């Protein structure tokens, strides 16, 4: 049986919800989330670690070959888990402005 996430929907902070929304919108790197959410590094990374611990998101390093082809260092990217997606849906009801702050379409159109 899967472990129940430690954060229930109602307890998710606005910052955490904002990060989930940014991830859902396609901003999957730490710096891009910071840029989109307007949050500083010292807030975003701990929050992402916390979300990862609660199994709402998961992270992975991209392949070295991709980074080499683009002549840059490899990046760690983040993805929403099914539990994270469900939590985000609940959070959108609680924070109706969330989607206006980071609309999903905007990311998809980029």
């Amino acid at each position, binding site marked *: 049986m899967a472990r129940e996430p*430690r*954060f229930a929907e109602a*307890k*998710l*902070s*606005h*910052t*955490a*919800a904002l990060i989930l929304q940014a991830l859902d919108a396609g901003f999957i*790197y*730490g*710096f891009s989330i*910071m*840029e989109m959410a307007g949050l*500083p*590094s*010292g*807030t*975003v*990374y*701990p*929050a992402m*670690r*916390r979300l990862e611990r609660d199994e709402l998101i998961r992270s992975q*390093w991209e392949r070295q070959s991709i980074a080499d082809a683009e002549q*840059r*260092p*490899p*990046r*760690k990217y983040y993805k929403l888990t099914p539990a994270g997606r469900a939590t985000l849906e609940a959070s959108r009801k609680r*924070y109706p402005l969330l989607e206006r702050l980071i609309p999903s379409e905007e990311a998809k159109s980029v």
Partner: protein
Amino acid sequence: MTSPTEWIARVCHIGLLRVASLLVPLPQRTEWWHEWHSELWHVRHACAPGCGFSMRAEAEVTAFCLGAFQDALYLRLHSIASRAPSRALRGSAAQCILCLAAMLTACYALALLLPGVRAERSLAPIQIGPGLVLIQDVASSDDSSPSVLPKQFRAWKERKQQYFDGFAFYRVTEEPVRRESVSNASGEESGWGVAHASENLFALLGLPVQFPEQDAGSFGDIPGVILSERKWKREFQANPHVAGTVLHLGPGKARIVGVAPDGSRGLPGNVDAWLLEPDEKTVAGGAGFVIAHLTAMGQSEMYAAKVHITEHNSGNSDDDLLGISLDALTPGSWTLFSFALVLAILALPAITSVSLGEYSENSEGTSLLRTICRWSFLSTKIALLLPIVYFSSLDLAYANTAIPASSSAYVQLVSTFSICLFSFRWVLQDQRKRCPVCLRRVCNPAHVGQASRTFLAWNGTELMCMGGHTLLHVPGLPTSWFSTQRWLYLDTSWRFLFAASGSAIESETISGFSPNGL
């Protein structure tokens, strides 16, 4: 081409990230360094996309690097928080039992390490034989002061006795002692308490001499001396081949013929060595101690630890004497502990209430299983505390081997009594503050009401169980209608409140965010 200013800024940024990474706990350090370093490239690429040095861009990159310190601080705090006892264990019955078990282990380990305690425990089985009394003058108020004159001893010994079938005499003098085979570097002699004792003393006591001399013939008429165990350990490093060593004892010489067993420590007088001499020599000095062995008739008359003895001497005058059982003089550490324990139990109501408070009727709180758990917990605490008290009092009493055995016994008695008294007080107070449902300590005391309204309304302190089971009401001023503390059982509808607050506190502690995001 990178300008020197830009190059310096890049080095500074990497340096900042490196320093920040050093603050991260070691297992996560590499991972975080890689992520920051990787993101730094992208931050720089985004803020200053190949347009040379720009103060604004560098400030943004620096802000990113400084943010890494916040990350590192979070990780460090999170690491410390995860090492701390979990919330589930904090204040719980298990934590209490674990702490007591740890204390017991520490006290027992200390008892094993301290040589004085080890000797006390290991040699305790050797006891002075039964039916022995110390005869003292009734006028002597102190058992440890010699009060019998040699002529009295001689007269008793020569007369046919009805109640005694053996006598031994000893008197203790302070004498300079020097070993013959080992030269003292400073040329000084140490002063020992030497007991000039009857040759039959140890036979009368029923104590076997340890490490006895094998070949006594080669020493001629040099008198034998028996070392006390304390001196044997201190001066001869517990050498088992000590017998045969010749000592300069006062004006003459004496050869060591063995080591006195521990049971002899209970005899009055601070004796370092027992010089066994014929009675003619022993009784040549001043007052001393007389040990007598009771006949069967004498033992039947020994109805108490101390009995009065009247000796009719030849001059038609009576000597009033006191016969003190040697068993009473040499209580073992266990006897002292038991005595102090009883005293502490008797004294306990004087320093705290022995009531555990009222447990009102409630289907959940007062179920048989809960009651059994509560009493089992109380019993376990007491069961763990008693050996803690025993070993800690032994540690205190026998840590210093220089103090006499009689003083150690007093230290043990006083320390056992004190520790027992305050331990029992703590046990009762702790038990009164335990939730009857989950046995967790109640916390968050809140004062309710005003003392001036005691007769119109309740005033006192309210404490809550963090599991949401109970509230404890402790009256500020006991009254006829609220004399002792009471438990208020909360129904299950309250649980969500406590569970939510518990999670919220944890969330805030770890992440630094408000749980509701505001």
